[in-house]
């Protein structure tokens, strides 16, 4: 800071020019982008072609890491399968539920602030370790869910966390439960829709479902797209919940890609291979995001374009 002040005095004119002051203000980003993004990315790209382990020489092995992923690593394919299953199940459910609650809450004037806070609460704390620990106990063999099941007459104990088919659903439910941020964004989107549309529709005698189908959903479609993209990217990178609640088990049925990558890097110390896995993750997220945007032309309605 002191040095900068010195410069200010001696190069007064220069430092006050648009260009220089622009770069001065943008400096934290430029330095951070080079130091914490570009440099690590180049380094990571290089590592993905080596067999680097912490404390050992890095040996150039060409494409071997990438070849190994597809030919000699069943865990890799499994983690992709598990992750895609999780994304495909949790994202639409979460979007649907968020939209449902957002529409539900627009129908009241009293208590709306209170309800909004209540429904947002799970999002607020859902990502924390504390909630993951609680979630694990909710689904424990003698936890809340099984006690409720017993009250409803289900006799046998369901082993939520021990059954390879069910364990992932505890994580999907935890993700859907955190619908609050999407709900808030939907609520803001709903407010933007002119009331006159609905009034006109009502005069024409349309039902609630027709209004939802022909007014609400088309007007909201850009917001739906935005939420879907953000949630999909987030779901691909889920880590904490799976790490704490199931730690990838049982039988690797919740071994998410991010968790597998972490294990490779920090348990097996295979930094080179893990870097290759990270680059494949980048590719995967990029392709999926692009697919969502490409197909979005089919269902997203932009008013300024006057239709599709």
């Amino acid at each position, binding site marked *: 800071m002191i040095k900068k002040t010195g410069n200010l005095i001696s190069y007064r004119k220069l430092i006050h020019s648009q260009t220089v002051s*622009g770069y001065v203000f943008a400096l934290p980003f430029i330095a951070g982008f080079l130091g914490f993004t570009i440099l690590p990315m180049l380094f990571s790209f290089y590592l993905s072609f080596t067999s680097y382990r912490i404390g050992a020489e890095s040996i150039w092995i060409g494409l071997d890491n990438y070849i190994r992923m597809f030919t000699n690593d069943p865990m890799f394919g499994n983690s992709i399968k598990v992750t895609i299953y999780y994304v495909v199940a949790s994202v639409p459910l979460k979007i649907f539920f968020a939209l449902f609650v957002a529409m539900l809450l627009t129908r009241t004037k009293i208590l709306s602030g209170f309800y909004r806070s209540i429904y947002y609460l799970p999002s607020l704390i859902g990502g*924390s370790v504390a909630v993951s*620990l609680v979630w694990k106990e909710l689904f424990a063999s003698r936890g809340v869910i099984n006690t409720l099941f017993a009250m409803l007459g289900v006799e046998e104990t369901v082993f939520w966390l021990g059954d390879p088919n069910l364990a992932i659903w505890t994580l999907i439910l935890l993700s859907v439960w955190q619908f609050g941020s999407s709900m808030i964004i939907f609520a803001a989107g709903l407010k933007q829709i002119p009331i006159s549309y609905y009034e006109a529709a009502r005069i024409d005698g349309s039902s609630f479902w027709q209004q939802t189908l022909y007014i609400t959903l088309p007007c909201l479609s850009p917001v739906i797209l935005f939420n879907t993209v953000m949630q999909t990217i987030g779901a691909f990178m889920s880590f904490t919940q799976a790490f*704490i609640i199931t730690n990838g088990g049982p039988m690797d049925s919740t071994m998410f890609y991010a968790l597998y990558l972490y294990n490779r890097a920090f348990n097996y110390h295979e930094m080179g291979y893990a870097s290759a896995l*990270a680059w494949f993750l980048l590719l995967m997220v990029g392709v999926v995001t692009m697919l969502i945007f490409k197909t979005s032309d089919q269902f997203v309605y932009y008013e300024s374009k006057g239709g599709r």
Partner: protein
Amino acid sequence: MQTSTKSKRILKGVIYHSFVFGLGFLMVYPVLWMISGSFKTNFEILNEVLKLLPDSFKLDNFIQGWRGFGRLDFSVFFRNSFIITTLSTIGVTISSSLVAYSFARIRFPGRNFLFACMMSTLMLPAQVVMIPQYIIFLELGLVNTFVPLILPSWFSSAFFVFMMMQFIGGLPKELDEAAVIDGCSRYSIYSKIIMPLISPALITTIIINFYWRWDDFMGPLIYLSRPARFPVSLAIRLFADTTSQTNYGPMFAMSTLSLVPVFLIFLCFNRYLLDGISTSGLKG
């Protein structure tokens, strides 16, 4: 006739509000269950599972939980969390506001390119830079310090820059122009005009970054292996991590305590947080 439509409306309202309230209760039930668990005995937790009101509000779990592990009690973990969270939040707020001002108000060559670079970092999976960053910090001897968890925040964050830019974009340009005519430099426009006017965006940044850092698990997990350096998020996992049986009461008590700062801030500032999410699409 009129009374019947009126009573119909009241009935509709009652049904609506009981449904919304019931669903809301279902949503917060796990949280209430955790809080009640922190007052229950292990016996109650395992045998009277659904009960939300414990027999008595004893603080035994809090006392036992606070004692922590070995010679480390929770004052250490809370202090660590506060240090990481505070230093990171100060850094990200100052640096992001500087960058936001430059992108929103100053025309300079390369600005659009830099802006595009910044937005692209939003899509970048953290895993891609995680491994090389770890190796770099390891080589610098900074693993097991707070530096890797704090330093990157001081170089701005795309989320917050974008949010502040939208806020600055809403301020009239005439303000800047009038200040320039009065002989104000860009540096004083930033500090005397822009900063005070975007204080709602600054508060939102502080809150959201506080939440992210406070809840952060992966960062501390990678960089901190010495328990004396653990933040609360890593420490409470130790309750369930021990080879012996999980000590539920203290675990719930410390989990509840770890969320107290989060609840308090939400109670005071929920308007800023919810508005911030809806205007910029930030995940809170």
